[in-house]
């Protein structure tokens, strides 16, 4: 097998392991689904009638970002228990495969939450067009790529519950700007390009730096 095939095989095995763990423990996904849905319901009743769609889109992104944060906070919990992360670090696979596998698994969870959130948003607030959906997809990739790296950093520290939001939220601001812009601006394509560039730059950074994050 070529090096690339082996790398892809490692990534798939690691992501599949996370999905299997979630199917068994159901620690993360149900919490994310309930959170995003209940947040949108609360926003629905909290907003005055006649509030502009622009404001509603902002609230959608608040709900999505904090839902992602909920998932990211749990992302490395299975690796913390029993020192499994050390087991992965010792393995001769490329360490970036550990990050990529985790990113894919978190992306699956976040996508599932968005599949609930977007219809609920359309029901409660405003219709969602294809550009807005593309914005959600691109922003989700960025959220998971950056978030998985930062969650690994936070997982190694004592104050992980505080550190993760402190690290993640500032870096998520461009994603929120891009996501909201794609949803409400007539120049949605510009925002999609911006999100694509963000994903590319931060995915490469996370891929290249992960090894240094997980070793003492």
């Amino acid at each position, binding site marked *: 097998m070529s090096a690339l095939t082996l790398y892809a095989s490692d990534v798939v095995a690691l992501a599949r392991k996370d999905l*299997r763990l979630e199917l*068994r423990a159901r620690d993360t996904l149900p919490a994310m689904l309930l959170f995003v849905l209940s947040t949108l319901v609360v926003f629905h009743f909290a907003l005055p009638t006649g509030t502009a769609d622009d404001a509603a889109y902002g609230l959608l992104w608040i709900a999505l970002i904090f839902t992602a944060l909920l998932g990211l906070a749990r992302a490395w919990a299975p690796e913390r*228990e*029993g020192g*499994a992360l050390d087991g992965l*670090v*010792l393995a001769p696979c490329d360490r970036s495969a550990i990050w990529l596998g985790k990113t894919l698994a978190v992306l699956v969870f976040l996508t599932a939450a968005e599949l609930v959130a977007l219809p609920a948003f359309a029901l409660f607030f405003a219709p969602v067009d294809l550009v807005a959906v593309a914005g959600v997809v691109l922003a989700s990739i960025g959220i998971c790529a950056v978030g998985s790296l930062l969650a690994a950093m936070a997982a190694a520290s004592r104050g992980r519950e505080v550190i993760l939001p402190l690290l993640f939220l500032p870096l998520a601001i461009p994603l929120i700007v891009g996501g909201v812009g794609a949803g409400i601006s007539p120049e949605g394509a510009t925002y999609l390009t911006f999100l694509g560039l963000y994903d590319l730059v931060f995915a490469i950074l996370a891929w290249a730096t992960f090894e240094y994050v997980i070793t*003492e």
Partner: protein
Amino acid sequence: MIDVAAAAAGPVVLGEGLEKRYGRKRVLRGVSFAVPRGGFLVVTGANGAGKTTLLRLVAGLAAPTGGVLEVSGDRRDLGFVGHEPLVYQELTALENLELFGRLYRVADRRERSGMLLERFGLWDARSDRVSTYSRGMIQRLALCRALLHDPALLVLDEPFTALDEDGAGVLDMELSALAGERTVMLSTHDPARVEALATDRLVLA
């Protein structure tokens, strides 16, 4: 030119003046040792002397803050047992060994997993989640994981911890079989147990 014969005869693990600090706390200070190919180094010392830190450095799980550490080979050549089992609690023993066997590129991982689980008395519990295991069973699984890829260098941090007499007996036999063929670094509070196998000793103060 590289002298291949000399390189092969050189130590598998060499530490010179090793130092490790965590912030202002110095855990290791000026530790020097060498483990030749096929050697069996027993590391002893009081609690807090730095045994675990030293073995984590050798395993590559931490980097020294001073001194020189050379470990021949790559991660594929190393088997490590630490204070934690390094396995997933919500996977079964077989699933854990399948995952790590894949990451270690073990071609016959199913057969080898089965053989190790049988040898360490875990075959009947192979499909149970690790979270349901006793401490001793978890330690046995940790040993299976460390031996799965047949490593040339075994780094074992107090491997007898939590094992009952049966488990300790199996580990005794494994170590006896590996001694001389594989290079072993082992920390223990009971050096008498491995006295017959030891070729070198390192006492950390």
